[in-house]
C-alpha cells in the first residue's frame, strides 16, 4: 500500500522504473491514494533530479555562489553542510528561481529550472516560516495547493496526506499563530510537499527548533528519504547531515570544498587517523602555544590532535607533563564531519 503518494511515486522513479514499474504508480492511483501525479516522461526517468553547472551568483562585491557544480542522484538525500553565509541558501534560492544566477545553469529532471515542469517537480521548504499566520493549518495547505493548481478532491486528499505526514491532523483547524514552534516547522515542511513534488529542497528546516521537535522532523524526513524522494538538505549541524544524508557537500565561501559520503569525506581528510581531545588546567595562552608546537589545534579550550595510532596518546601526555601542563581529561574519537570541516577550513562549522 502506498501510504504517501510522493513516497510511492518517487520510490518507483528511484527504482529507475521500467514501464512495468509505472503500472504500479497507476495502480496506486486506482486505489485513490495518489491524486495528481505527473506521468514520468523519458527525460524525467533518465535525467538526474538536479544538475547544477558552474553556478555563480554575486551580490555587489560579494560572491555568494562561486562556480558550484553538483549533481543529485535519483532518490538521494544530499546534504549541503556549511556555516552561516557559506552560500547554501543562495544556491537553494537559485534552484527554485528566486535568485537569478550571474552564470551557470540548473536543470531539474533535464528541464530548465524555470520551466513549468521544473516548478511542478520541485518542492521548497524555505528557512523562514513562510505561512499565513491568521489561517489554519488546513487553510494554509489548501492555499499553497491551489497556488500549485490543485483543486477539488485531489487538493483535499493532498492536504489530508500532508497533515498526516506532519502529524498535525488533530490540529488541522488551529490557527498557525497559535501553534508551537515545532508544529509550525512541520507545517512549513508540509506546505512544501503539498503538490507532491519529486525533488524537495529543505533549507535548514530545523532552525530554532527544540531537540524533541527536531527528532520528530528527522523522522518525517527519513520517511521521505526511505520512500525514495530526492532531497537537498542544507544545515550547519553536522549531526543532521550525518544522520539524514546519503552524501554531503561541504560548502564554504560559495565553493563546494568536499563532496562524498560521510565515510568518504572522513577517509579523504583523515585516512585511518584518529583524534585526541585533551583539556588542561592553566593559562590558555601557554596551552595554545604548546598545542601548536605539537601540531594540534585549540578549539573552545580543548586541544585537538590527529594521531595515526592510539598508542601515540601516551607520548602526547608525557610531553604535556614535561611542558608543565596539568591534564584534566583526555579522549580518543573517530573524526567526523565537524573534524573534516575544521581540517579543510581551519574554522568551526558554527563560526
Amino acid at each position: 500500500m502506498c501510504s504517501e503518494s510522493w513516497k510511492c511515486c518517487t520510490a518507483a522513479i528511484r527504482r529507475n522504473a521500467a514501464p512495468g514499474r509505472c503500472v504500479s504508480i497507476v495502480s496506486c492511483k486506482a486505489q485513490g491514494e495518489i491524486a495528481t501525479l505527473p506521468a514520468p516522461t523519458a527525460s524525467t526517468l533518465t535525467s538526474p533530479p538536479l544538475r547544477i553547472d558552474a553556478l555563480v551568483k554575486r551580490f555587489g562585491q560579494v560572491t555568494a555562489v562561486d562556480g558550484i557544480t553538483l549533481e543529485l542522484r535519483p532518490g538521494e538525500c544530499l546534504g549541503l553542510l556549511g556555516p552561516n553565509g557559506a552560500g547554501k541558501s543562495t544556491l537553494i534560492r537559485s534552484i527554485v528561481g528566486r535568485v537569478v544566477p550571474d552564470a551557470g545553469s540548473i536543470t531539474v529532471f533535464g528541464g530548465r529550472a524555470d520551466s513549468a515542469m521544473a516548478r511542478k517537480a520541485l518542492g521548497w521548504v524555505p528557512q523562514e516560516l513562510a505561512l499565513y499566520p491568521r489561517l489554519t493549518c488546513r487553510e494554509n495547505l489548501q492555499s499553497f495547493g491551489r497556488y500549485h493548481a490543485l483543486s477539488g478532491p485531489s487538493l483535499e486528499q493532498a492536504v489530508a496526506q500532508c497533515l498526516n505526514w506532519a502529524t498535525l491532523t488533530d490540529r488541522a483547524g488551529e490557527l498557525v499563530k497559535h501553534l508551537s514552534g515545532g508544529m509550525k516547522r512541520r507545517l512549513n515542511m508540509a506546505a512544501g510537499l503539498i503538490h507532491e513534488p519529486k525533488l524537495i529542497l529543505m533549507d535548514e528546516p530545523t532552525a530554532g527548533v527544540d531537540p524533541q521537535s527536531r527528532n520528530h522532523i528527522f523522522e518525517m524526513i527519513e520517511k521521505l528519504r526511505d520512500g525514495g524522494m530526492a532531497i537537498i538538505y542544507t544545515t550547519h549541524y553536522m549531526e543532521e547531515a550525518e544522520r539524514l544524508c546519503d552524501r554531503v557537500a561541504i560548502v564554504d565561501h560559495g565553493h563546494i570544498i568536499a563532496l562524498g559520503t560521510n565515510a568518504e569525506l572522513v577517509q579523504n581528510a583523515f585516512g585511518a587517523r584518529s583524534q585526541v581531545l585533551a583539556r588542561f588546567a592553566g593559562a590558555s595562552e601557554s596551552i595554545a602555544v604548546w598545542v601548536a608546537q605539537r601540531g594540534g589545534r585549540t578549539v573552545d579550550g580543548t586541544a585537538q590532535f590527529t594521531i595515526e595510532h592510539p598508542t601515540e596518546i601516551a607520548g602526547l601526555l608525557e610531553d604535556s607533563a614535561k611542558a608543565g601542563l596539568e591534564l584534566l581529561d583526555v579522549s580518543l574519537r573517530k573524526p567526523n564531519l565537524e573534524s573534516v570541516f575544521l581540517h579543510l577550513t581551519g574554522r568551526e562549522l558554527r563560526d
Partner: protein
Amino acid sequence: MLTMMISIMRTAMVSLRRDRGALALSFVLPVVFFSIFAVIFGGRRDTTPKVSVLVVDEDHSRASERLVQGLKHEGSLVVKTRPAPVKGVEQPEYTAATAEAAVKAGTAPVALIIPHGFGENPISFGSAEANRPTIQLLEDSSDMVAPQVIAGFLQKVAITSMPDLMAEQGSKYFDQFAGGLTREQRERVDESLRSLRQQQDSVATSSGSGSGGGGIIGVTARAVVGQNRDMVSFYAAAIGVMFLLFTASGAAGALLEEAESGTLDRVLSSRVTMSTLMLGKLTYNSLLAFSQLVLMFLWGWAVFKLDFWSHIPGFVVMGVSTAIAVAAFGLLLASICHTRAQLGALSTLVILVMSSIGGSMFPRFLMPESMQKAGLFTINAWAIDGFTKIFWRDEPVSHLWPQVLVLLGIAVVLFAIARRVARRWEFS
C-alpha cells in the same frame, strides 16, 4: 540618574533619526498641514475665494441694470450674465431656465433672477408691498456659504449703488402715507433726485463697508440642488474615500508582511506569477473598498435618511471606480515601501495631504481657486465630485464619465507603476 536620563534621551533621538517615517510624521506632516490650512482659511487676501453668481436681468430697467452693475463692481463676486464663449463664439445671455440648469450642473452655486417689473418698486421697507416682484435667488444648498454671501451683497449694493432710487421710493411712500408734497416741495425733491442720479451715473460704485442688513430688496430664495437634503451624502463620500485610502494601503501592506515572512517567495516559487499575485490583490482590495462604501452609505440610509436606494446605478459606477483607484493607490504605496512601519508613515502623510486638498476634510468649493485646482490631482476630489453628482445633483449615470474615466485612468497608471516597482520582489 541624570546620566541615565540623558542616555535614554540619546537612544530615543538616535532611533527617531534613523526612522525616516517617524521623522516625516513628526516634522514634515505638521508643516504641510499647517500650510494647506493656512492657504484654505485665509492668510493672504488675494487668495480669498471669490463667489460665482449667475445673473439674469429679465427687467432691463434702470434699477435692475444699476443693481447688476453694482454686483459686478464687487471685488468678492464673479458675476456672469452669459456662459463662457465656446470656440470663440459668444453665448446668449442666461435665462431663468438656463441659469437654473447651470446651478444644477454645478457651474455656480447661486443664480439671481431679476424679474419683470422689479424696477417699478425695487426697494421696499418692511412688508408694505407684499405682492411686488422679488428677486429670485436659486441656490445649490451643498454650498452653505455662497447664498448667504450673495443675499448680503444684494442688500449692500442696493444701498450703495441706488441711493437715488431709495430716495425716490421714500418720496413715493411719503406721498402714499402723508398725503403728498406741495408743488414747491415736489420741485425741490425732484431737483435733489436729479442731482443724485447724475452723481451716481458719474461715480463708479465703491466697495464701501456695511451690508444691506434690513432687506430693502425683496429676495425669494429657492434651493434648486439638494432640496430637502442635508450634507449626509457629501460626508459619506468625503469621509468614506479618506478611510478607503487608509484601508487600501493597510490591506496592500499584507504584501510587505508576506515579503518579510518569506511567504511571498514561496508563493512566487509556485505557479503564481507576480502579475497574477498583484491582480489578485488589486481585485481583493477593490472588493474590500467597495464593501466599505456600501456599508457607509447603508448606514447613512438607515440612520441619517440618506436616499440610497434610488441612486443604486450611479453608486455602483462611482463605488467600483473609486474602489479600484484606491486599491491601486494602496498597492503602489506598499510596493514602494520596504517595511510596514515605512508604509504606515508614508500612507498617513500622503493620505492626509490628499484628503485635505481633495475635499475630504473641507469642501473644495470653499477653497481658493488654486487649491481647488490642486485638488484635481487627488483621488478624493474626483470621487467626491462623482458621488455629489449622483446624490446631490441627481444627475444621470452618463454624466459620471469624466470622474469614472479619471479614476480608472489613475488606477491603471498607479497599478502599472506598482507592478514595475514590485519587480524587486520577483528576483534578486
